[in-house]
């Protein structure tokens, strides 16, 4: 490739990286944590899910029929059963929906019954607009971080557009990085630890960039698709193929169409259907069940499965009498290679197509992606302080470093703070009332730590303090759970909780150990800023 083209690509790589570095770190770090949010960390965060995530199909069938008798007939148009699998609600949730409202509401309205997954005792009920129910559902620390990754809590569409755009910039950075790095194969394993911080950072940037390139391209592309699909791609596709009619496009890609009620009574065999689904895909998890026109001759049942041998999630379609119709994708029974590719995008982005091992791979690669923009930015800054005519003063260099530590380290600290807070909230606040705490605690601790960076302290000391606090906060989870938790490492009520607590402790100790290894600078402030 011509050197002038390489120079242009280098400029593009540098500027895209510099402008989006902090945001890319935020997205990548929260994404790496979010990989484990459902179901592992969600189960850890909800004591109700810790004892059991499985409800026998006979019990599901019994509850659906029992509560169906208690709601007006129009609420049987559409029944959603959300299993307590750690993917949706923390309780077994039955939602009876009337699409055309009732005597009190003109919009879509729902009657909801929520049960404890283990005892099946009725815990909560709801009556009102469907949208309000879904908007007000109980959240927890891992879900909060997962949602932050999706739209930065900026709301939709702004948040989605921003994260989608950042996916594109990651894609651009990964591809241009591969082109401009000419010693790709030669430096496959070059990591010189003992030759100073600048060289180690430069080597780390290259090594992570090369080894993580395929992952970064895939995550960038799928992230851009997930962020921009509903906001830009959907209207564009509707414009091209459906004459601008978005509703028609959605109707085509909706796997669950409206069912015509025949008003001929026929019991819907929920138990038989669930048993059949389990025998067909024994390793898959039932996430939710949708029953259309319950106890009608035209009743249809749809079961959403995750895992098993299929990489993408599947939707099983049954007639109400228990007859299996077909297995299809979440987008419905649409043929063609493009729909297969779209289907694969979700598991490839979330890393949820198999067990915990695959998720751990995604977490490690996700953290390496988070380190890329930061190491790149540090290289860019350090380069500008060197030479006979540096264009960045030492104090400016120190300010930039403190900004990076405050914004990125602050995010790490704010995310970690949510975990001990979750344990305390489980002890002191019940249900959806917990929702009010996560936002303020997360954003104020992040902002507070960023503002501390304004103080004239050496950036190494600031980094050491950040690492130390992160370690202390994570280490606090295990003792807090022993004191307040329903399951912990001593009573071993849940193996998952014990493993998660021990992992938090281990990561915390590593953070503290690394922090203690950093030598504190005792020189006067400005003199000490020399890189």
């Amino acid at each position: 490739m011509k050197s002038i083209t390489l120079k242009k690509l280098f400029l593009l790589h540098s500027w895209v990286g510099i402008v989006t570095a902090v945001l890319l770190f935020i997205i990548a770090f929260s994404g790496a944590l979010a990989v484990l949010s459902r179901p592992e960390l969600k189960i850890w965060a909800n004591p109700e899910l810790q004892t059991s995530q499985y409800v026998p199909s006979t019990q599901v069938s019994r509850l659906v029929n029992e509560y169906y008798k208690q709601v007006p007939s129009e609420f049987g148009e559409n029944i959603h059963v959300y299993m307590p699998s750690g993917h949706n609600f923390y309780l077994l949730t039955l939602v009876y929906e009337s699409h055309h409202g009732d005597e009190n509401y003109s919009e879509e309205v729902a009657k909801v019954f929520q049960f404890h997954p283990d005892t099946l005792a009725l815990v909560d009920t709801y009556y009102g607009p469907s949208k309000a129910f879904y908007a007000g559902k109980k959240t927890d620390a891992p879900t909060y971080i997962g949602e932050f990754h999706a739209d930065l809590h900026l709301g939709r569409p702004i948040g989605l557009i921003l994260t989608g755009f950042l996916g594109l910039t990651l894609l651009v950075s990964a591809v241009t990085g591969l082109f401009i790095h000419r010693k790709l194969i030669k430096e496959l394993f070059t990591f010189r630890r003992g030759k100073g911080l600048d060289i180690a950072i430069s080597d780390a940037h290259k090594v992570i960039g090369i080894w993580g390139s395929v992952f970064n391209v895939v995550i960038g592309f799928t992230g851009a698709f997930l962020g921009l699909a509903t906001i830009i791609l959907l209207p564009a596709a509707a414009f091209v193929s459906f004459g601008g009619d978005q509703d028609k496009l959605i109707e085509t890609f909706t796997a669950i169409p409206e069912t015509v009620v025949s008003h001929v009574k026929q019991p819907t065999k929920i138990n038989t259907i669930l048993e059949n689904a389990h025998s067909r895909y024994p390793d898959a998890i039932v996430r939710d069940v949708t029953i259309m026109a319950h106890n009608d001759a035209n009743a249809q049942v749809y079961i959403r499965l995750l895992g098993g041998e299929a990489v993408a999630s599947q939707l099983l379609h049954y007639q109400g009498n228990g007859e299996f119709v077909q297995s299809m994708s979440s987008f419905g029974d649409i043929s063609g290679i493009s729909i297969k590719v779209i289907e694969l995008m979700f598991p490839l982005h979330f890393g949820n197509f198999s067990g915990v091992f695959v998720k751990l791979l995604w977490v490690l690669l996700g953290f390496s992606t988070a380190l890329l923009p930061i190491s790149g930015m540090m290289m860019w800054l350090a380069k500008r302080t060197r030479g006979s005519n540096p264009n960045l003063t030492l104090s400016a260099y120190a300010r930039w470093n403190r900004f990076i530590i405050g914004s990125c380290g602050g995010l790490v600290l704010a995310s970690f703070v949510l975990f001990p807070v979750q344990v305390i909230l489980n002890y002191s606040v019940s249900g959806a009332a917990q929702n009010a705490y996560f936002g303020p605690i997360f954003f104020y601790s992040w902002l507070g730590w960023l503002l501390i960076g304004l103080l004239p302290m050496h950036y190494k000391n600031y980094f050491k303090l950040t690492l130390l606090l992160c370690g202390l906060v994570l280490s606090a989870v295990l003792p807090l759970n022993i004191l307040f938790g329903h399951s912990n490492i001593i009573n071993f009520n849940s193996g998952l909780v014990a493993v998660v607590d021990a992992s938090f402790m281990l990561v915390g100790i590593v953070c503290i150990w690394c922090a203690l290894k950093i030598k504190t600078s005792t020189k006067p402030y400005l003199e000490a800023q020399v890189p």
Partner: protein
Amino acid sequence: MNELLILTAMVSLLLMMLNLRKNTITRPIKALFCTILFIISVMCFTGVYGFIGGVICTIAGAMVAGLLTAIIAGKAPQLLD
């Protein structure tokens, strides 16, 4: 059984990376070892996660193994000697 297959696959990938990094063996032998170890890894992962899942896992596993080898073991030019 699945745990054993996953462990075998990851060990194969790590050995493949260490083999790639080594500069005391000739290129054909290096290529042969790498191919054999990669095939073992694909077979193990395919046995656990199916064909598509297995291939995806092998690629992701190779990336992590390469990254760990580079960060922990380090050291420079290997392939072009």
